[in-house]
């Protein structure tokens, strides 16, 4: 657990310390370091593919250790020479308070029933599966060319390279590391929210309010800000820190280039909008553009955009892609509005209105632009197209800022004691909203005392597989079992949770079949979509889990859909155990491993 804690910190620190060799500014250093490592991984993978692929991990490790040693040495020498940067007492107090409060919320409430290394974010499994492939030297710019777990390239593999690096350096599997990564991300979002609000509003108390709201507002559907680390949430975080850095530290515009590159590579859609927002703040530095960006037509335009977005719901709804799951993510306006009240609380409407009014009356151009962007982001996210809720990853920070302004507007006439009392009251209010929201999110994941998408028994099976599965093995099971076991073990499967239609139909055709020979033959026809995986294919490992049998009970159309899955672990029942015994007794399958939730059989 402790090693994974530091390995997770390495996700941020390795690129940061690498970049510090060239650049002093922290955010720019992190961005440059990330891009350098992306290039280095490509170069080393290419080099070792021509010589000895097994050297990939060793070369990465050697390079990382060398770079980190030099960087840390230089950092210590610099600190001894120049001293540590000075931080004002209120900022230091607010930072420490946010870390303490955020940690208490995270461990005391959020993951109180999700022990290490269990996970509550379904997407984390596919990111882990891809990063695991990278640790073995398989790299491409496109995720779908590294793992067929990805069927759509909405981002580059930069996120996964950063995830793979500490895995290689600390020689750790990624599931436990990811458990800590979510914690680091949560704390960093609170600090980013604080810094962002402080940069834009110049008030420590308002910034603290914004960060507190940020800790307690969880966009628990599609966006997953702030409690899960994903490419989209990291892109939003980096963009917000970039805005704060540009505004507070007056970072030169050219320094933003590597940061914008990273934001864009992290997630093309969210990144594109994030880059546009960062650039719009940079444009405030140009007097003529400043007048334009903060003019009344722009302010009014954002309100019209919101009205247009809401009005479009009357005309229909449009899936953005031809992916089948896109249709399921087309949400009516009422549902989106309900989600907002569940994430922020119904009183947030009042606070947002008061905050927006306060900001519109301000003489600060930055506040006018912030308000216009807030309204535009909400307009974008509320539009009747699938996946657009993802923009709440960015909107989160802006909404928290406007809400904090609303709290400030209501408390500005109070005495100091009154302000503190009001802040306490607001914190309790948002705490109730958060408790309701997180309980509602976690309850369906409950299984045998844990709230998780993966059970301890599945983690144990993953451990066993990683140590004992022959190299080149292919796991075959239902989509959800494949997703969790591929992430927990590093053993490849066809498509993980996004298995192909052909594989789904093969599995459907063998449902409870007692023609064991035919079952074995059909399973051997399943092939990975990627050529390099097919070339190294050795054994076929058929995993019969409680999830598998539950999935087989779905109607055909649901089995052929990406949208329907068994989201939580399932125990094998006596009927399932009897079927497994039949397969084993047929001598067409060898039993390799068995626990209360699954059995792993090798197809003879």
């Amino acid at each position, binding site marked *: 657990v402790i090693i994974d804690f530091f390995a997770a910190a390495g996700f941020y620190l390795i690129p940061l310390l690498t970049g510090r060799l060239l650049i002093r500014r922290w955010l720019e250093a992190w961005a440059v370091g990330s891009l350098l490592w992306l290039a280095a991984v490509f170069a080393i993978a290419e080099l070792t593919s021509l010589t000895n692929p097994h050297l990939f991990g060793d070369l990465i490790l050697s390079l990382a250790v060398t770079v980190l040693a030099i960087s840390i040495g230089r950092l210590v020498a610099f600190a001894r020479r120049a001293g540590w940067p000075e931080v004002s007492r209120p900022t230091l107090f607010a930072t420490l308070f946010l870390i303490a409060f955020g940690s208490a919320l995270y461990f005391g409430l959020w993951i109180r029933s999700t022990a290490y290394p269990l996970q509550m974010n379904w997407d984390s499994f596919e990111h882990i599966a891809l990063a695991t492939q990278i640790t073995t030297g398989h790299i491409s710019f496109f995720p779908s060319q590294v793992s067929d777990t990805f069927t759509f390239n909405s981002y580059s593999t930069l996120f996964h390279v950063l995830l793979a690096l500490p895995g290689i350096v600390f020689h750790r599997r990624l599931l436990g590391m990811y458990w800590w990564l979510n914690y680091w991300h949560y704390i960093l979002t609170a600090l980013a929210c604080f810094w962002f609000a402080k940069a834009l509003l110049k008030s420590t108390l308002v910034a603290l309010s914004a960060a507190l709201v940020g800790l307690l507002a969880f966009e628990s559907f599609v966006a997953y800000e702030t409690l899960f680390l994903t490419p989209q949430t990291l892109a939003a975080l980096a963009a917000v820190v970039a805005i704060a850095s540009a505004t507070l530290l007056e970072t030169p515009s050219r320094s933003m280039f590597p940061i914008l590159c990273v934001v864009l590579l992290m997630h093309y859609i969210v990144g594109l909008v994030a880059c546009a927002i960062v650039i719009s703040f940079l444009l405030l530095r140009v007097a003529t553009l400043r007048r334009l960006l903060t003019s009344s037509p722009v302010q009014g335009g954002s309100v019209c955009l919101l009205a247009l977005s809401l009005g479009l719901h009357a005309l229909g709804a449009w899936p953005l892609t031809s992916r089948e799951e896109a249709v399921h993510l087309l949400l009516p306006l009422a549902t989106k509005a309900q989600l907002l*009240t*569940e994430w922020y*609380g*119904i*009183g*947030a409407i*009042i*606070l947002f209105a*008061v905050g927006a009014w306060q900001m519109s009356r301000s003489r600060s151009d930055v506040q006018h632009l912030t308000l216009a962007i807030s309204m535009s982001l909400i307009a974008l996210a509320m539009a009747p197209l699938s996946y657009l809720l993802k923009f709440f990853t960015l909107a989160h920070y802006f909404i928290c800022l406007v809400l904090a302004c609303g709290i400030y*507007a*209501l*408390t*500005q*006439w*109070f005495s100091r004691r009154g302000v503190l009392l*009001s802040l306490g*009251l*607001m914190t*309790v*209010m948002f705490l*109730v*909203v958060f*408790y*309701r929201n997180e*309980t*509602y999110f976690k*309850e*369906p994941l*409950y*299984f*045998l*005392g844990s709230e998780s998408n993966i059970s301890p028994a599945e983690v144990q099976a993953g451990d066993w597989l990683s140590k004992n599965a022959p190299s080149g093995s292919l796991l075959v099971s239902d989509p959800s079992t494949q997703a969790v076991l591929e992430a927990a073990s590093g053993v490849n499967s066809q498509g993980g949770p996004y298995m192909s239609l052909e594989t789904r139909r093969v599995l459907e055709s063998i449902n409870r079949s007692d023609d064991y020979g035919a079952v074995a033959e059909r399973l051997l026809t399943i092939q990975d979509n990627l050529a390099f995986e097919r070339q190294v294919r050795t054994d076929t490992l058929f995993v019969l889990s*409680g999830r598998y*049998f*539950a999935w087989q*009970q779905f109607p055909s159309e649901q089995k052929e859909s990406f949208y329907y899955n068994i989201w*939580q672990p*399932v*125990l094998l*029942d*006596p*009927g*399932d155990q009897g079927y497994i015994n039949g397969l084993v007794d047929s001598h067409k399958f060898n039993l390799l491993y068995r626990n*209360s939730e699954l059995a792993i059989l090798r197809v003879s």
Partner: protein
Amino acid sequence: LFRKSLAALAMLITVAITVVTAFDRMPTDAILDPAFRARLENDSIAFFGPNLTSAAFWITPFDDAAYSSSVGAPLMLRNDFTVHTSFLGELLITGQRLLLGRDTIVWHVEGGAGSTVGDVIYLVSRVGQGRVRVTRTMDQLPTATTAIGQVIRYCDDCVAVAAPQSDSRGGFVIQDAGGREIAIVSGPSTSDVHLSPSEHTIEVRNAVGPGRPDRSSQEIEFVTP
């Protein structure tokens, strides 16, 4: 002073409506235990085993019955009832859950004109690892009532069999569709336990009468996996 008062009022209203609506939507409708899950549904309290694939059995006021001599009448008629929720009740249950770790579901149902009783409050409490107590408190129970029948309706694919004689608790064992033992249903020594395989019900019948409260309880023990 006017601005200050107005701001304070706006703040209090904001906090009040947010907290009330959050508690109103609070998920206090389920009890989670490694051996089972109990959940309020539209017209019943559903009980699941450790797997959430399908409910193993249900309790409803449409199956529970009030007996006058040996003739039973359902407490309420299906599709003729109103469910009541209370903000204070939700607040109390959430507080208990957070502070005391006590898990409770309260289901307050008011019957329509044709009902045998006025109101029934079902209180489902976790009374230990894998054990729940279901208490029914009835209002306006007919004076001629001699017994209350507490009915468990198990799923179509499930079976109920008599508990092995070695099991001192007696009663019946409910097995799910896959053959896993989910729960043992038994009654106090003073009650009668009836199994009706054709109806898929187990009924525990307890006598009531003058001097006894209009309340009956039963404990269900789930089989820990």
